[in-house]
């Protein structure tokens, strides 16, 4: 064996430099693909992290600096008798009772109103104590005293447009109250919308007599947290729960976790597509330089040396791509935070505009991912180049795959089988990680099966004789150079299948949502009192509305949030008239249990509720309501796309019996035949209680449907964008592959011209080759995409968002897609062919020989 060539750095510079100078476009495209993948993943991660940090800060600032908190599980709060019980527990140094309500400012913007006992808050949450305007340092005194004094955080102050000392009217479902704007809350960040006032006034004017929404706790130093938490839980009533900073973080994390992880996964798809591009660029450049490599080997470069050489080329592309991607990602994240907000349009953290938080660890991870993908993309071509016999390779630069060898289906089948198994696996940490694994395995298996499929589809064509020269040449060429055909096919299949899968998922989802909206909104007019979790329309007001002329039927509804678990976001409880015999009239049922028996109250849970809390039709579970716990029977499961954290519907009569609450916050109104909705709206509005009228929305179902679909599209905008980018990267890869392959065949074209094939016939051959590959690839991509779409619909969506949908096939889109791909493949080949054919035939043949 010759000694290893001692010139490696020089060699590297020479080879990489030469290759890059000769084909800068290819290197740029490959690096760009890596950069885009890294940038997308990194940007999505940064935005998510910034949003989470912001959310944590928001929670922190409304909570103040309390060590532990006890929260009401619903807006009505818990009995204030809990306050002295907690305050007396030995491990607790101070307990600060809090009334917390959602109120609206005169400009109708929402604000969190906290009622504090300033003497207690000073010990537990000093950051929530107000500073009187023009009188710094006197907060404690003035707050204790000003019964009507209210303190606003900076952004609330701007929204209030009220000068200090002037009255500021706040509205809640309980009515209006004019407080005196006394000062600011310097302890809160500028983005918080919080108002603070005395607890007694808040409870009287906005809250419920005898009830609190929160107790903030400061612990004695050195106390055992676990034991104290046990002691606290022992005295908690059913409508209160213990919240720790940890559980609160979990809650905010689960709020948007599935959405975030899905976006990250899509970004990873983009990165993988980038990896494929590196692969195709590298394998082409390796194929073209095979004789160069053979020369080097003959001159003494070892097989390992050659491998290292090619991997280092991939590494260089990876470094450029990943670094560029990080910079691009930083820019994208900044722009996204400005334009879309912290939830990337997902609607989870409304109204927040977080600061970008830099994350060194993630920066490292994404840099590493970019490099790894680029190196992995180079690995296969490198191994292939190493295997080649230098003596053979010196002479020929043809396809290394022997066309007589029949491609094996073993590995693709193993991969596809593993994908199928992975699709059946349950979620991990509530995330469909196996589902994504199944997608990746299916994709890999599908791509792996391409050489076999191409062979199988081409063999009948190959047996055809008496063909015109162009088709004959095209088929022979594809048959004779299966390796190059496979590379091109992989690109087409990968991008088509991903595109198809996403298209199926989105069209199924949107269609299901639209159907659901139609079923959900059968009435003529909908009425909703904003922020009325308690109070709202009392029986008198309900009767007055029901007696209005023109109304055929009015169904009142109470909708309130309820916390069932201390580390899950709250669920929604809906009390509305439900016919036990025919619940499908009020709910979009997907499953129904036998009619409930005995005294158990029937409830109907939404799909997300059913999955998140593991309750099925026919189960019973404990529902804390009205300060008591009730064992309820799950009489059915209904489809719900609007409350991802779960909802429980129950009959209004049972709800009133369990809670004593006769107020309602919403109504669905059916009009008598011939009555126009437009004419009824002013009548309805006029009949509303005066203090609720300005916070009540009246809407027609078509407006609600449009609004809902707008929100749907908005929340999917980021998904669409990421997917489009992944597909574009894939398409660019296909185009680059085709043109590179075509350009590399200059000699072949020269030879063909030499033996009398016309220029037109060569172009027709290229168009046919491209078209055939496009057709095979896009059909295979469609089939693979349909499978992957089913994984998205049946596995990934239910596991991450807890809802199901009915499959809808966007056939028009498929048709367009196949046509576009065939045209693009053929067109690219022809375009590249024209430039390859532009030279003189004899010189072309001579070149390289």
């Amino acid at each position, binding site marked *: 064996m010759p000694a290893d060539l001692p010139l490696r750095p020089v060699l590297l510079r020479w080879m990489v430099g030469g290759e890059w100078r000769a084909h800068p476009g290819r290197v740029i495209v490959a690096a760009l693909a890596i950069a885009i993948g890294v940038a997308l993943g990194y940007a999505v991660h940064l935005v998510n992290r910034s949003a989470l940090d912001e959310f944590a800060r928001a929670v922190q600032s409304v909570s103040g600096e309390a060590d532990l908190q006890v929260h009401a599980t619903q807006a009505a709060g818990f009995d*204030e008798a809990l*306050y*002295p019980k907690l*305050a*007396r527990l030995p491990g607790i140094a101070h307990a600060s*009772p809090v009334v917390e309500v959602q109120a609206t400012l005169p400009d109708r913007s929402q604000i969190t109103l906290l009622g504090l*006992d300033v*003497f*207690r808050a000073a010990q537990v949450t000093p950051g929530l104590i107000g500073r009187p305007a023009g009188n710094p*340092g*006197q907060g*404690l*005194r*003035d707050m*204790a*005293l*000003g*019964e*009507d*004094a209210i303190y606003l955080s900076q952004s609330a102050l701007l929204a209030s447009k009220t000068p200090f000392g002037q009255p500021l009217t706040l509205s809640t479902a309980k009515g209006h109250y004019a407080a005196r704007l006394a000062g600011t809350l310097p302890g809160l960040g500028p983005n918080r919308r919080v108002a603070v006032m*005395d*607890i*007694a*006034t808040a*409870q*009287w004017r906005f809250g419920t*007599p*005898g009830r609190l929404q929160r107790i903030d706790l400061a612990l004695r130093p050195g106390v055992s947290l676990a034991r104290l938490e046990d002691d606290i839980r022992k005295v908690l009533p059913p409508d209160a729960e213990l919240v720790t900073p940890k559980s609160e973080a979990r809650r905010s994390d689960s709020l948007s976790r599935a959405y975030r992880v899905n976006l990250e996964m899509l970004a990873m798809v983009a990165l993988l597509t980038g990896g494929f591009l590196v692969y195709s660029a590298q394998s082409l450049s390796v194929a073209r330089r095979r004789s160069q490599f053979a020369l080097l080997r003959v001159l003494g470069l070892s097989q390992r040396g050659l491998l290292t050489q090619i991997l280092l080329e991939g590494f260089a592309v990876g470094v450029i791509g990943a670094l560029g991607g990080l910079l691009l990602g930083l820019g994208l994240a900044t722009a996204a935070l400005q334009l879309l907000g912290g939830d990337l349009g997902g609607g989870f953290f409304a109204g927040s505009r977080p600061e970008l938080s830099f994350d060194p660890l993630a920066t490292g991870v994404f840099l590493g991912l970019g490099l790894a993908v680029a190196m992995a993309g180079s690995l296969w071509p490198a191994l292939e180049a190493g295997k080649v016999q230098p003596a053979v390779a010196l002479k020929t630069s043809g396809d290394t795959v022997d066309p007589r060898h029949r491609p094996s289906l073993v590995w693709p089948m193993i991969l596809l089988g593993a994908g199928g198994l992975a699709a059946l696996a349950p979620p991990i940490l509530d995330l469909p990680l196996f589902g994504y694994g199944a997608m990746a395995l299916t994709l890999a298996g599908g791509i792996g099966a391409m050489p076999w499929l191409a062979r199988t589809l081409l063999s009948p064509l190959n047996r055809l004789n008496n063909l015109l020269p162009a088709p004959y040449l095209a088929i022979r060429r594809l048959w004779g150079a299966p390796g190059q055909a496979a590379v091109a096919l992989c690109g087409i299949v990968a991008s088509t299948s991903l595109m198809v899968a996403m298209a199926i998922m989105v069209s199924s989802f949107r269609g299901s949502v639209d159907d659901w909206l139609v079923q959900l909104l059968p009435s003529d007019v909908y009425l909703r009192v904003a922020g009325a979790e308690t109070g709202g329309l009392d029986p008198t007001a309900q009767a007055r509305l029901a007696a209005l002329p023109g109304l055929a039927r009015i169904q009142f509804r109470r909708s309130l949030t309820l916390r069932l678990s201390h580390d899950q976001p709250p669920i929604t409880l809906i009390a509305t008239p439900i016919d036990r015999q025919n619940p499908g009239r009020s709910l979009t049922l997907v499953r129904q249990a036998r009619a409930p028996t005995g005294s158990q109250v029937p409830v109907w849970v939404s799909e997300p509720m059913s999955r998140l809390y593991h309750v099925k039709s026919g189960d019973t579970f404990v529902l804390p309501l009205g300060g008591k716990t009730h064992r309820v029977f799950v009489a059915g499961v209904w489809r719900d796309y609007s409350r991802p954290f779960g909802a429980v519907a129950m009959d209004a009569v049972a709800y009133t019996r369990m809670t004593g609450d006769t107020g309602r916050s919403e109504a669905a109104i059916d009009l008598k035949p011939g009555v126009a909705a437009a004419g009824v709206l002013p009548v309805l509005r006029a009949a509303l209680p005066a203090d609720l009228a300005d916070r009540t929305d009246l809407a027609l179902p078509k407006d609600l449907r449009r609004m809902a679909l707008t929100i749907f599209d908005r929340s999917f905008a980021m998904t669409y964008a990421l997917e489009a980018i992944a597909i574009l990267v894939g398409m660019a890869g296909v185009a680059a592959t085709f043109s590179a392959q075509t350009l590399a065949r200059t000699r072949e074209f020269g030879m063909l011209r030499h033996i009398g094939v016309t220029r037109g016939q060569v172009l027709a051959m290229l168009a046919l080759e491209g078209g055939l590959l496009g057709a095979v690839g896009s059909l295979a991509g469609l089939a693979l995409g349909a499978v992957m779409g089913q994984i998205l619909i049946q596995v990934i969506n239910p596991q991450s968002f807890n809802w199901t949908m009915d499959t809808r096939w966007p056939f028009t889109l498929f048709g367009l897609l196949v046509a576009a791909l065939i045209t693009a493949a053929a067109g690219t080949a022809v375009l590249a062919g024209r430039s390859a054919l532009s030279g003189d035939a004899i010189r072309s043949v001579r070149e390289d020989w």
Partner: protein
Amino acid sequence: MRHFHKPLLVLLAAVFLAGAAPVTFPKVEPRPTFTFPRDHGAHPAFRTEWWYVTGWLKTQDGRDLGVQVTFFRSRTGLGAENPSRFAPQQILFAHAALSDPAIGHLVHDQRISRQGFGLAEAAMTDTAIVLDDWSLNREASGTFKTRVRSSDFDLDLTLDPTQPVLRQGLAGYSQKGPKPEQASYYFTLPHLRVTGTITQGGKRVPVTGEAWLDREWSSTLLDPRAVGWDWVGLNLDDGSALTAFQVRDKSGAPVWAGGSLRTSTGQTTVLGPGDVAFATRRTWHSPRTGTDYPVERSLTIKTPGGPRQWTLKPLMADSELDSRRGGGPVYWEGAVRTEGGRGFLELTGYLTPLSL
């Protein structure tokens, strides 16, 4: 006659008044009739009220400590119509301070809360006050027990009366300004025998000593000319008890003065303006606030048997309290020795006039 003792509270009450609904506070009338134990309890209709314990303690190893434990009640005039149990109609405030020459300055702590929920209550039937983990209770035997938990020290003290109630002023009507309505109901339990424990630095040690309990309630304010006051209460070794105070104007001249001297046999001399004279023997300069306090005084009172004089020497010159961070004033309050007796001296309004 400790109406002015807790400047913080008075200030608090004054601010409360600013935004308060028109609530009528009862006036302090001459010739009160006290009934016990009821009048040991709270009088929530009046604006302010306190239970004020000052005393000298001796530890087993012979160290002298000064101690002060006070519970205040304040009716705010607020929230009268508010049905919420949090309505801040009554605020309870407690303050405790320890003079330990080994430390060299006062260590103190406080509690404040609106009354209610069993966490902060002052009973109307007898002394039974609780404010979180602090309390002051009078048992049927007449013995008082107090409990204080603070970051620097804990107190668990039993106070046994050895003498009958001392009614200050005219049978318990104590005038504190030129106008008759500037007055309070005021009685004292001097010569309380103290046993109990004090815990410092995690070490609990038994203590004995002698204390003084002032009970006072009123609805009125200081005279507008007043900027501060000096007050002293002395348990004399012969069993007599001396109370003396003066309210000062801007020039330092007395606006009003008063006090009493009760002998061990129960003979009481009531002191009025002109009967009490404080003179300064030594001042102490506070390095923290720059205030000069006349911490060593000679006190002369007129008695039917002729003028009598005592020299007051502080246990610890640095007995300054700066409560400005909590919205209160800066003042001096500490244990003092005299010939044949010991007690407590309070000096207010020496840095800035008390704004009332």
